[in-house]
């Protein structure tokens, strides 16, 4: 059973602004489980995801996957297993194909197909917010992740595309992965059949 747990009841992450961010967190995610994380803006949802991906230093709490402490896993491997998808994905290559090839290279995966609605040669700099989110989510779903940390991954998508994306994530979790999805959408947990966690 895959469990992403923070058993210390408190995770202390330090934001880049050096503001100490304190919040009691006790979060367990089981394999195949979908959880929607909700909370007001500024409550630290994105910071929690960053901390879980081990992108921010923390001086307390503990973080484990299948009982193995994050500190015992090489950082690159941890982040491939516990994969963060940002709300505003940065342009990582010039074209859609470039981003997919880069994602495949880093994931150790085979060549990734182009997501529906996008073309290989499309310049990443000119993608809309929703298209950029589609590309990021699409490549993350095709990597070796065991846990997906999704930071409002469909916030800029049109409703139809967002609905399709929700379906892909649900299918992915059925394959045994755990998902923590940050969202302001009150109906999302019900649509996904997910547990709701509040900050």
């Amino acid at each position: 059973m895959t469990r992403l747990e923070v058993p210390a009841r408190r995770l202390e992450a330090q934001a880049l602004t050096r503001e100490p961010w304190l919040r009691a967190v006790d979060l367990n995610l089981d394999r195949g489980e979908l959880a929607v994380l909700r909370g007001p803006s500024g409550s630290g949802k994105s910071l929690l995801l960053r901390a879980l991906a081990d992108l921010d230093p923390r001086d307390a709490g503990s973080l484990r996957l299948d009982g193995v402490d994050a500190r015992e896993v090489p950082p690159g491997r941890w982040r491939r297993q516990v994969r963060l998808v940002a709300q505003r994905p940065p342009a990582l290559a010039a074209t859609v194909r470039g981003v997919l090839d880069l994602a495949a290279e880093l994931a150790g995966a085979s060549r990734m197909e182009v997501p529906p609605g996008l073309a290989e040669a499309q310049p990443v700099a000119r993608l809309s917010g929703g298209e950029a989110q589609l590309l990021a989510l699409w490549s993350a779903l095709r990597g070796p992740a065991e846990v997906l940390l999704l930071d409002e991954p469909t916030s800029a998508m049109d409703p139809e595309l967002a609905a399709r994306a929700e379906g892909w994530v649900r299918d992915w979790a059925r394959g045994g992965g755990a998902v923590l999805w940050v969202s302001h959408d009150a109906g999302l947990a019900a649509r996904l059949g997910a547990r709701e966690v509040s900050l």
Partner: protein
Amino acid sequence: MTTAPDIGPVGLGLAAALIAGHALTSMAFQLGLGRRLVVAAVRATVQLLLLGWALERVFAAQQPVLVLGVMTLMGLVAGREALRRTTHTAPGLGRATTLAMLGSSFLVTTYGLVAVLDAEPWWAPERAIPIMGMILGNTLNGIALGLDATLKGLESRSGEIEGLLAMGASPARATRALVQDALRTATLPIVNSMAVVGIVSIPGMMTGQILGGGDPGIAARYQLFILFAIASGTALGAVLVVLSARRLLFDDRERLRLDRLSPR
């Protein structure tokens, strides 16, 4: 071989009069540079006269330890100056910059003295110190440019870098494009100046050697050696400082630590 005629106090005074032209410009256009100009001109005068005075003594002493001491001191000052030219700083960066400065310039200078000039003794102060000075002065630029590009890039491209880290990339992979850009920024000026040297300008050292009564052919070959040494020192120094800066701004868990960066 003729030697250069000395410039006496009167000559030096007449040279200083040239500065008046600059002062007039400042006044005419109200640049407000008058005070800074006077301070800079006085500093230059004192520094160069002191340097001449000190070098006379170091040359007369012919002591390798003294030569090494002077070269190290020059490297330390250059390291400080390179760091001063960046917009940001981080703990440990001063030491890294000084080490990059000293390491690259010592290595290239020693190679030049031993392999290229093949003089006896190889550490002779009248060759070692001016050559080290030429290399330092130019490497300083490259190191400052490379360091500044790295620090600025880590900050402005943090989204891209952390995006790659989140995908499992190592810091080296996540900063590959940034390091390439920084090294290009650091080394491009010397590449550009090599391409036009001798057409647009006669470089300072060659001018000095010719004024000092040297053979222009020999002066040209010396200048070529110095240019290549500068190019090599700049590249080496830039690589050292860029990689050190990257190492200092990632922690043992391969996290980008912009919190270690502070504006100057």
